[in-house]
């Protein structure tokens, strides 16, 4: 199927782009809050709670702090938000039409997933708030930290297929020869990606950029109203897309009903890790990602190259 003209617009805005992903992301945010509440023996919010939050923020006043760079401050949320819409379109398209993707879309996706943290850093730096600046510097360090093991882990499926950097090829190879997860290198790579997802989403134990107790929600401290709603939507969409991405690259792709269960398993695992771990210090996170996960990543790459 060719995505051109109004089909592309529909894919970008309704399915699987903005509307679908945002709805699923917000529902998943509710699942997150509900499971967190149950872990703490609480009752938890109703299903419509994330939708009410976003609606309220969209209708509230937007304050731009005095002295902030106004244009950058207000445009930064759009960067991450648009990146997530494109990611959703691309990811679902290559899953259901593996032949239709282009060479190098894996690399494009990695760059698209890098845009939301970048948007947060830009917005926080433009807001002229010292706590925001601390948050932005932590976000930057964290980004540099988790990107190395993330890329090493993504190299594993690429090596297993003999150098395919097209997600369509990865999906087809898994449909032919079984998911990459069912092997030693595949398990190590999937665990590394799972931990990197945790950091990309900014969930505990890697929530030092938004640490509510020390730097008062850090990077988002000056955001209110519509831009804050966009950041929350971006995060919700990312929460939906990252497990989808993991299922795509190492657990057999999304084009089967089993994918829903796999997706839910990964999402609940993320929520449980989030609820049972205290926050790392930023330098500990850097050390953890580079020297521990990095070492495991290199081991996974070596194992993958000897076809284990």
């Amino acid at each position, binding site marked *: 199927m060719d995505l051109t003209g109004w089909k592309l617009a529909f894919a970008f805005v309704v399915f699987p782009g903005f509307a679908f992903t945002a709805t699923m992301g917000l529902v998943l945010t509710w699942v997150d809050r509900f499971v967190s509440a149950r872990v703490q023996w609480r009752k938890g919010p109703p299903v419509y709670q994330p939708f009410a939050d976003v609606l309220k923020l969209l209708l509230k006043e937007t304050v731009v702090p005095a002295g902030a760079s106004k244009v950058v401050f207000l445009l930064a949320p759009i960067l991450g938000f648009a990146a997530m819409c494109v990611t959703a379109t691309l990811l679902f398209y290559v899953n259901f039409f593996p032949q239709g993707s282009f060479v190098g879309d894996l690399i494009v996706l990695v760059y698209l997933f890098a845009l939301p943290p970048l948007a947060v850093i830009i917005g926080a730096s433009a807001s002229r708030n010292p706590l925001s600046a601390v948050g932005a510097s932590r976000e930057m360090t964290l980004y540099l930290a988790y990107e190395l093991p993330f890329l090493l882990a993504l190299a594993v499926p690429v090596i297993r297929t003999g150098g395919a950097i097209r997600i369509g090829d990865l999906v087809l190879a898994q449909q032919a020869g079984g998911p990459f997860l069912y092997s030693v290198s595949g398990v190590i790579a999937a665990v590394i990606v799972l931990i990197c997802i945790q950091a990309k989403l900014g969930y505990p134990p890697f929530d030092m950029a938004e640490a*509510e107790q020390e730097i008062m929600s850090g990077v988002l401290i000056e955001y209110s109203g519509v831009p804050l709603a966009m950041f929350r939507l971006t995060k919700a969409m990312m929460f939906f897309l990252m497990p989808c991405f993991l299922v795509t690259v190492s657990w057999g792709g999304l084009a089967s009903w089993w994918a829903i269960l796999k997706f839910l398993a990964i999402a609940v695992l993320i929520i449980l890790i989030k609820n049972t771990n205290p926050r790392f210090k930023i330098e500990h996170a850097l050390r953890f990602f580079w020297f521990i996960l990095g070492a495991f990543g290199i081991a996974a790459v070596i194992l993958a190259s000897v076809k284990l």
Partner: protein
Amino acid sequence: MKDPRIWGLKKSPWVYHVAAASCNNCDIEILELLTPRYDVERFGIVLVGSPRHADALLVTGVINRKSLPRVLEVFEQTPKPCLVIGVGSCTCNNHIFRNSYNAVGPYDKHLPMNAYIPGCPPKPEAMILGVVKALSKL
């Protein structure tokens, strides 16, 4: 349903906690609201770290000449519409500090208050009732 803005405010009131020179008892009781026993997240109430995210300010403590400008600044930083709710007897009538040279309360001389919750400190049930009353007035 009249105004979606009011509906959103009622269904997800995010609370910022302004401790304006209180003795910390009210603050501890506010944190009690988030524990599993009372769990105000059922109603969408979340404690947020920045006044920019807040829909309701919970002010505690007797207001004095030093804390007044800070509280006013926090109020101005909060995006509107927002509620201001005074927690504890100190906010209502200066309580045991009523003869102090430094007390300039009660709060409604300075801020548009939506509710006062008396008590020293008020019980968590009383706070939930106060917030519900303030929200149902909207």
